[in-house]
């Protein structure tokens, strides 16, 4: 029973993914995957923590601050097979883009690995 509970919890965690949206696509009830921290001339003007559920008031506040994007947590409805297929397709595309790159150079190698990880998610 305990094992089932753990598995269910792990599956639920695995099935959420981050998504970056232009602000005009943000809506009430969306859950922040990253904190929002709005600075103006090195002064923090507005913050919301990760895990916060956006409210109508929040959206008005963010609009007033000229927010351009939000990072939210969304359910990942894909099957494990689809996740693997999507990751493989994304990896193939990244490798084609980097085909002529000199991956012995530290910055290039690090960028390649980071883009590969980002796009393969």
């Amino acid at each position: 029973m305990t094992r089932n509970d753990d598995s269910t919890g792990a599956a639920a965690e695995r099935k959420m993914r981050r998504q970056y949206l232009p602000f005009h696509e943000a809506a009430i009830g969306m859950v922040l995957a990253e904190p929002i921290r709005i600075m103006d001339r090195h002064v923090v003007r507005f913050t919301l923590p990760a895990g916060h559920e956006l409210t109508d008031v929040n959206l008005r506040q963010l609009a007033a601050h000229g927010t351009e994007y939000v990072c939210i947590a969304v359910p990942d409805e894909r099957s494990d097979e689809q996740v693997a297929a999507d990751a493989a397709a994304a990896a193939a595309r990244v490798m084609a883009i980097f085909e002529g790159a000199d991956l012995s150079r530290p910055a290039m190698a690090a960028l390649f690995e980071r883009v590969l990880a980002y796009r393969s998610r």
Partner: protein
Amino acid sequence: MGALRTPLTREQVLAQRDALPVFPRVIDDVLATLDDPDANVGDLVAHVGRDPVLAAQVFSIANSAASHTRRDGKVRDLYTATSMIGLARLRQTTIVTSLAGFLRGALPPGLSPGFWEHSAAAGVCARQVALHVHQPGDPALIAGLLHDIGQLWLFRFQPELFMEAWQVAVRREMTIDAAERERFGVDHAQIGAWLAESWDLPPPVCAAIRHHHAPDGALHEPLVAVLHVAEVLSNALDLGGSAPRVGYLSDAACEQLGLRWDESTESLFGRIDAVSHFISTYFRSHGVSEDVRA
């Protein structure tokens, strides 16, 4: 291989410049508000009022923001609209709108839509990289949007040789800038910098355009590293352009910006993905891409 008998000179490039549309002077007003937010705001707002396309864009953004509030009715007054979207957004909107109009007018027939998709993507990346490393975003946005303006000049005024160079680069026989130097004696980065200087763009923007493929000799100018990395990122993230690919990334430029490409940079990638939608949609909706497909 064809080539010019003598290398292109600055004078030859600028002599043809008048065949391009007049460069939008409002960019000066935008840049003037950077250091002193109270300076020239009136001029900037007045310019918006004289430009129906720009004013419509400002009202559109203001009303989108108003949809998140409980305001009654649409925003119809320009000063209210400006105060709602804020000076930073007004500057960004003015840059994108005015440069999109300029680029639309400068388009030679037959140029691939990928050219403008790449310019828009580089603009987004440059602004976001600059903000990520705590530099001003607006000069970076301008530099990114205009970084390949030299290619436009070559395509417009030396189309046959330029297409030859382009095909060499597509076949991966050499880089585009090397193929251009073989044929013209200079590359598009140099031509773009000459044009930018002639439009009185700030020296950091001109330097960034000049060195965006080979930044290491000019890293004393911070925008050089920003634009170089941004241009690479726009290809690495597959944000637009015909057959994007990554060829060279300067270790020194990354080091100067403090970019380590660890997990913290994934939020930078995410911001770029989200915001790129704004500019690429704007370019498409205002006919830049459609014009070149025609």
